[in-house]
Structure formats: C-alpha cells, structure tokens
C-alpha cells in the first residue's frame, strides 16, 4: 500500500493543478484516472476545441492546456495511475484508504475528488440482449485482435474508431460496417479505403440503419438491423464491435457516504471539504451556492483545498502563506535557483 499526502481522483485540468498547489506547499500526491491519458474532458471530449477563458491564455485547445499543466507539475515528479478507477474509499484511523478496480491500494490523510462528471466508460448498445453477450460476442474496444481473425464482424459507429477497426480487421475477417446515417464523421481517407474494399466485396456498408435485435442469446448467430425506410435485414455475425464513444458515469463515488446534490458533491466553499473530513471535491463535480462549472473556478477551488490538506498532512507545522515570486522554499520545490 502506497502512502502519500493526498490522493487525487481525476487527472483533468483541476486534478493536475491540484498536484501543483499541493506541491508548492511541500505535499506529495498521486493521481488516479480511469482514462488511459491525463486531461479528462479536455482531452477526451474536446482536444481540438479552443478554450478562451483561461486567465492570461487568450486561446488554447484542450490538448494544449493539458500539455502545459503536465509541464507545470513536472518538478513534483508525481505518479499518475491511469486506466485505474477508484472503487472503494474507507477510513483507517485518521487516514483514508483507496482501492482501485485493479486492486491497487493507496493511503493518505487527504482525498481530492476532481472527478468531473464521473469516469468515462464506453457507451453501450441499447438493446437488452447485448448485456449478456458483453465481452463474449459484444465488445466496446479491441484488446486482443487475434480473437477477431477469420470471423464475421459487425462494426457499429461513424467515427474514427469504427472506421479504423473496419479497415484493420478487414484484412482477415468479413466486416459489416453499420451506421445510423449516410455520412461518416471519421477520417475521410480511411473511409475511401473502406469504400474501395466495399467494391471488392470485402466490406459491406449498411446505412442509414440501426440494430434492432440480436438473434441468439448464448452464442451470437446473427443480428437484425432496420433501415430508415423500415426495411429490415438479418446479417450473419460472430462478433459485434460497437463504437458509440464514451459516456460519463458517476460510478462508485455515489457510494462513499458523501452528501450529494444530483450528480455533484456538496462542499463547504471555505475549503471545499465534503461532509467527510479530509475528503475534498473540486472542479465540475462539486457544488456550493453560485458554483460555476469553469476550469478557472476549479483552479481556485483546489488552491483553497490544498491549504486544508496541508493542515491535515502536517498537523504539527504551521501553514505559512507564500508567493511563488518571493518564496525561496517554493522556488526550490519548483527546481528554480
């Protein structure tokens, strides 16, 4: 079990800046995120969209903001645990213990929840039978492409994931690409490659249509799709790959005994502490009177929360407010001379 001063849940902009605010106060932290990279919504939902309301940065994309924050926290050598979702939180004396879905354990006097709207998970097919076949015949990502060799595969979606996998798996399998409208939003050059394969009969493209049923419950045999003109078609299928993007799910956070207001966590706006001492919530996931879901608000929230974290992590030391411009201690921590 790894010990630290603060466990930060969520590697979005606010979680990353938490590392900075704790770091300049001399506190160590670790960051846990369910995605495979840092950046949260900025990187997952709008990496290329410009943001115009970061103070002193007239314009930057979600990706640039993430890159700069990672650079800003580099001096603190903080470990990021990615592809990990925090499942359990419990108290052990004055310490909090956190356990992830991969059984990693961490302990600290402070937890900072910077979880946005929860963790990102693949959007699932809406038909009921798909649930029973999940990870048997219905997949939302490709972890091992070997199992898809020499099979009949139905791929759903209109974005890059759907197109890329249609192209890749068509090398040794029979692909049917299914999308709800005629236009695909994925890279057009990938699409034209697929259109070529369609002419050669290696890939079938079915649009505009949606799945209406799976035709076997134990082993998938075929699926039935319905076109916009109400015509239906049965397609012999071994595997379904569905790429409808990610959804944000609050997930286990709701079970940690925190006072919630819909999908947000109630905090004291003085230090952003929740109803449980030593658990803080910052950024989009916290709520207090007048809360604005802005990145800049999250930065402010985490600055204040970090002061309270200091008091809990260093009960015998006195907290001194310092400026980065004049504090030698902070400059040392940042690796500046």
């Amino acid at each position, binding site marked *: 079990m790894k010990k630290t001063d603060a466990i930060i849940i969520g590697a979005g902009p606010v979680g990353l800046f938490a590392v900075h605010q704790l770091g300049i106060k001399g506190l160590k932290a670790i960051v846990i995120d369910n995605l495979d990279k840092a950046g949260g919504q900025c990187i997952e*939902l709008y990496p290329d969209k410009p943001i115009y309301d970061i103070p002193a940065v007239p314009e930057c994309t979600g990706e640039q903001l993430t890159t700069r924050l990672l650079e800003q926290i580099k001096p603190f050598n903080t470990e990021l645990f990615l592809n990990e979702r925090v499942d359990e939180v419990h108290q052990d004396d004055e310490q909090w213990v956190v356990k992830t879905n991969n059984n990693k354990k961490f302990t600290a006097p402070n937890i900072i929840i910077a979880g946005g709207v929860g963790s990102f998970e693949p959007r699932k097919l809406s038909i009921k039978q798909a649930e029973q076949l999940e990870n048997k015949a219905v997949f939302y990502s490709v972890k091992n492409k070997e199992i898809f060799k020499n099979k009949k595969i139905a791929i759903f979606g209109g974005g890059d994931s759907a197109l890329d996998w249609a192209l890749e798996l068509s090398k040794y399998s029979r692909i049917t690409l299914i999308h709800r*409208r005629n236009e695909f*939003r994925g890279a057009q050059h990938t699409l034209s490659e697929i259109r070529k394969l369609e002419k050669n009969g290696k890939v079938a493209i079915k649009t505009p249509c949606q799945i209406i049923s799976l035709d076997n419950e134990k082993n998938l045999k075929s699926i039935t799709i319905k076109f*916009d003109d109400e015509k239906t078609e049965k397609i012999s299928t071994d595997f379904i790959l569905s790429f409808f993007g990610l959804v944000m799910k609050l997930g286990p956070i709701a079970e940690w005994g925190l006072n919630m207001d819909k999908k947000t966590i109630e905090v004291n706006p003085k230090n952003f502490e929740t109803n449980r001492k030593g658990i803080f919530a910052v950024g989009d996931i916290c709520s207090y009177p007048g809360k604005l879901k802005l990145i800049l608000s999250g930065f402010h929230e985490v600055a204040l929360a970090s002061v309270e974290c200091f008091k809990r992590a260093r009960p015998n030391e006195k907290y001194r407010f310092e400026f980065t411009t004049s504090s030698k201690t902070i400059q040392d921590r940042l690796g500046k001379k």
Partner: protein
Amino acid sequence: MPKITYKDFQGGSKTIEVENGLSVMEGAIQNDITGIDADCGGSMACATCHVYVEEKWLSKLPKAEDAEVDMIDMAFEPKKNSRLSCQIIINDELDGLEVTTPEKQT
C-alpha cells in the same frame, strides 16, 4: 415568455415558461425537468441533453451544425427528429415548442 412543453417517454408532460435566449436544455435544468442530464453543461460534448422535437417544430429550428449531428450519433436511440436541447435557443417563435426526452440519456 415562450412556453415549452417537455414530454417524457411514458407520456408525462410539463409545460414551463422559459426566458428568451436560454436553451431548451437550460430551461429543463433550471426547472428540474427529469430526462435531460446535460453532463457537459452545454458544450456540445456529451449528447445527454438529447431530445426528439415534434415534427411541426423541426422546420422552425435552425439546422443542426455538423458538430451537433456528429454528437447525436452518440446519443441513446437517435431518430430523424433528434436534436441536442443545448443547441435550441428559445425565442418568441418557439412559443409552444414540444420536445420529448428519450427513455434514457446514456
């Protein structure tokens, strides 16, 4: 103020007055209409404010931008009359607008 009717998939309905300039999504959130989640807060990044717009009103709405149509691909059970309610800005011409929320948003 324009009146907007929010229907749910089971036939329930609520009519509320929503100020011009707000979106249909904001009208729902401010009035505790269930069935609209709006996880991303209106930045066209999540498709959880997805609604079906009654046919007769569809033509009165500005056409959906590409980014909105792309995002509707991600919505739960999209149909031809699907729109993201965060992109429908209320004005006097939309007085009486009726939208139906899907069975669920994710």
